[in-house]
């Protein structure tokens, strides 16, 4: 493997380089995915553009407008951030399921999302939270909802020279809570066989579900929002049986494949089980 290491000091410089070497350049942030892919010759970029030295892509801010996560924020930071644990515990919960502490210390949010694995553990909870991606590029800035950010396995909507700068999460509604359930053979160092995130918001009073968002990982070419399952629940008092029905709807929406990590049949079954569990767990948390 041989590549040229490019170290831009400013974002503008990085974007220009990426724009002029679009098919030959890849971004290096934490390196936990790209370096493995390069070593395994699954990707052979001519240039690796290290953006770790670029300012303005790091950090967590929280205010009345919600949460902003710089693309270079490490997974470990998300896992351990007091404000995230308080306001968006589902994100910390999902972050904690990724790799090992060592991997989480290197890996970044932007990398987890831009690698665009259908199994990306941060994707499903961010979709369920209604997050948006702020994208910077040669043509300026644009915002894309998280569920529209992915275009296929390993593909995002990022155009030539474009960089994911930041992920914005709206402020948590009162009486809302989320859950992320990841299925894998091990307790650490694992890739989700299936992952399901649900965020439930209750009416200000009572048990009726004002809004719900469900996202599925590893069961479609992209992290998938399960809209039909949401429709079953929205505006309803969610019983166990209704959660089961939502699970069945989510199973219909999923389009899993068979690979060495699991069969399509098992994955589809698990979408049903995990959707029900995630919804009920989120519901329970939203009540308290």
């Amino acid at each position, binding site marked *: *493997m*041989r590549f040229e290491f490019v170290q831009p000091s400013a974002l503008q410089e990085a974007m220009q380089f990426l724009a002029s070497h679009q098919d030959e350049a890849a971004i290096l942030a934490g390196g936990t995915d790209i370096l493995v892919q390069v070593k395994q010759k699954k990707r052979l970029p001519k240039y690796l553009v290290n953006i770790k030295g670029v300012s303005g892509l790091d950090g967590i801010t929280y205010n009345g407008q919600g949460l902003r996560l710089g693309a270079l924020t490490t997974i470990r930071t998300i896992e351990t951030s007091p404000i995230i644990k308080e306001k968006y515990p589902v994100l910390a919960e999902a972050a904690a399921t990724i790799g*090992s502490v060592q991997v989480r210390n290197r890996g970044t949010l932007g990398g987890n999302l831009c690698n665009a694995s259908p199994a990306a553990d941060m994707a499903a909870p961010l979709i369920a939270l209604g997050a948006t991606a702020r994208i910077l590029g040669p043509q300026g800035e644009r915002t894309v909802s998280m569920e529209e950010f992915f275009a296929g396995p390993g593909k995002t909507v990022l155009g030539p020279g474009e960089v994911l700068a930041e992920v914005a999460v709206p402020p948590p509604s009162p009486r809302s809570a989320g859950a992320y359930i990841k*299925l894998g*053979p*091990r*307790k*650490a*160092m*694992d*890739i989700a*066989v299936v992952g399901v995130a649900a965020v439930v918001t209750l009416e200000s009073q009572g048990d009726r579900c004002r809004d719900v968002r469900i996202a599925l990982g590893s069961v479609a070419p992209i992290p998938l929002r399960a809209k039909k399952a949401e429709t079953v629940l929205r505006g309803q008092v969610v019983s166990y049986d209704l959660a089961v029905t939502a699970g069945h709807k989510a199973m219909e929406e999923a389009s899993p494949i068979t690979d*060495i*990590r*699991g*069969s399509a049949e*098992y994955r589809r*079954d*698990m979408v049903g*089980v*995990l959707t029900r569990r995630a919804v009920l767990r989120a519901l329970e948390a939203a009540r308290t």
Partner: protein
Amino acid sequence: MAFSVVGKGLPRIDGASKVRGGAVFGADVKLPGMLIGVFLPSPHAHARIRHIDTYRAEGLPGVKGVVTAQDAPSLRYCTPAYGPSLCDRTFMARSKVRYFGEPVAAVAAVDEETAREALSLIAVEYEEIPAAFTIPDALLPDAPLVHEELLSYQGVGREARGNIYLQRSAARGDVSRGFTESDFVFEHTFATPMVHQSYVEPHAMVAAVDDAGRATVWTTTQAPFNIRSDLATILQMPLSQIRVVPLEVGGGFGGKLFTTLEPICLLLARKARRPVRMVMSREEEFLIARPRAAVTARLKTGVKRDGTLVAREGEFYFDTGAYQGAPVSFGVRFGLGPYRIPNAKADAYGVYTNKVSAGYFRAPGAPQVTFASESQMDIIARELGIDPWEVRWKNAWEEGDESVTGERMGRIGLKKTLEEVRRRGMWRADREVGRGRGLACGQWYTGGGATSACVTIYEDGTVGLLTGAIDITGSRTGLVQILAEELGVAPERIVVPVPDTDTIPWTGETSGSRITYGGGAAVLQAARDVKGQILGLVAEKLEVSAEDLELGGGRVYVKGSREKSLSLGEVALAAQGTKVGALLGWGVVGRLSPAPVFATQVAEVQVDAETGQVEVLKLGGAQDVGFAVNPLSVAGQMEGGMAQGMGYGIMEAMIFFRGKVENPNFADGKVPTAADVPSMATAIVEEPSDGPLGVRGVGEMPIVPTAAAIANAIHDAAGVRIRELPVTPERVVAAVKEKRG
């Protein structure tokens, strides 16, 4: 007998250097001018090699040598130590490739990148031919033959036919009459997958040839002397022209018993006239190293209503892959379980398939067949409504019982291990909903290969121990304890450099949990030898009788009078001026009779019936170790074995698609992480053997029953019986679905 050093849980003497990074492993050896060697793996599972063109590779700047099978004599070899002596193996593919990944050519170059680029320039013309990927495929009457010329191979047995290269059988009594006399007969088939040992350190070696043509190979190995003889055979070199230097082993588990790339590495060094290093990548480890064989087992068992075994018949098919190496005979020896069975019959078959060649992995053969045998014992107990513990207790071997192979039990600790799991509360009746407990017994043996050891006393009173016994488990700490005890010195006063094949006489490989047993006997003999010399010399000096002397605290005393003494250093110094010269004790022991080993384990699990996920909550094991020279090491081995057994039970498997390993890495080749390993309890049973200090082998035994105990616990928790390893969530869910209809 009161001991002061043996029987104590001393920390490993090699621990600190390994933790700090000072220990030297295969990949640490660096020589001036050293090249990097890489091999070209076959892209086909079964194909004829029409032509290999290395011309372009040789011309690439930086390439110093390219070799193919043509660079060595055309011959097939086997390693006699590992029997059977069926010579079916070539060090590199010659006229055809038999598995995906089989080395076809190799390159040495100034760096790895150049070497790999050169590989891409080697043109190999293949003609793909039909392949046999699985045991059923290979046993079909018109199956493609993995070795068409099997019957012409040196050492081939009369039983060889088609893809079956080996059959081992044993019988006693009359099984068909036994089944007729039984109240119930159970028959089941079980399957286990191929799994890799997953040691942390991959195979790594450096080869160099000096001006006179003498070769030195530094390598990570459990068997330096076997590598030396394999190299001599393969390259047709005189044995004395080869020196093998064993290095620290970063995990072996049997996987480093075999010669892998050493002949290729040495050939490259010879051709390039420069030292060459080869280190397998993790993927290459999965492609060409020597994993545990897959086994399909059919067991038929007849019992009385009260659970007494009347007859048992086992058929064990070992999938050896492309070359022989599966531990077939152990299927016969251990497949029917450690039970009194008046009518017994066991047949084990070695079957070729177009997959990587299997080898040995911690208690080779036993975990596979024990999964079958102990799962079925559990089925029988539950069908008869008898406590699974009781069924084992009723049938367990005692002194005087005989196995199907005619091995007569001496004093053995099997029933004591059963007692122990109950006494300690590992096996008990109460349980919570969704949880289950499973029990399994297992047997293994202590191998008795030859060992050489040498003990010398330095002038400063420190003691040097040299032994050919390679340490893969911390065994050198135990050997030091045995020596320290015998010579009355502190263990810290003993140094244990690792000798090579030039500096220590022949010693058998580290296998069969034998080092503290055979190695211990050699060390004890060497210690007694040097002790005799010390006592003789001191007796002369102090003008007392040798019987009146004793050793302790690094000194030699006159019994009862502590004033009259000499330090060992003074004795060594004194020896230099006498006709003794140097104090040097030798211990060479030949083959010892194998000592049987037994264990009983209990697993406690929680099963999520909807997702099929199994959480192993607790593992507990009782094991007869004869005598625990180092109880800390013994407990460590037991815990390590159970952890590895747990991986085998619920997650590990090499997944093949048309002969190609689909998960040749640790992302998808799952082994448990520290977070997955449950709390473990260990109970040491000590029923002495005839060996030194009464020890029995420890290292391999604990992996044997674990997978069966877990599968039995899963049945207890979820009511489903999974007869194929690993018990994955998907298999549990499928079984639950099937059960519900």
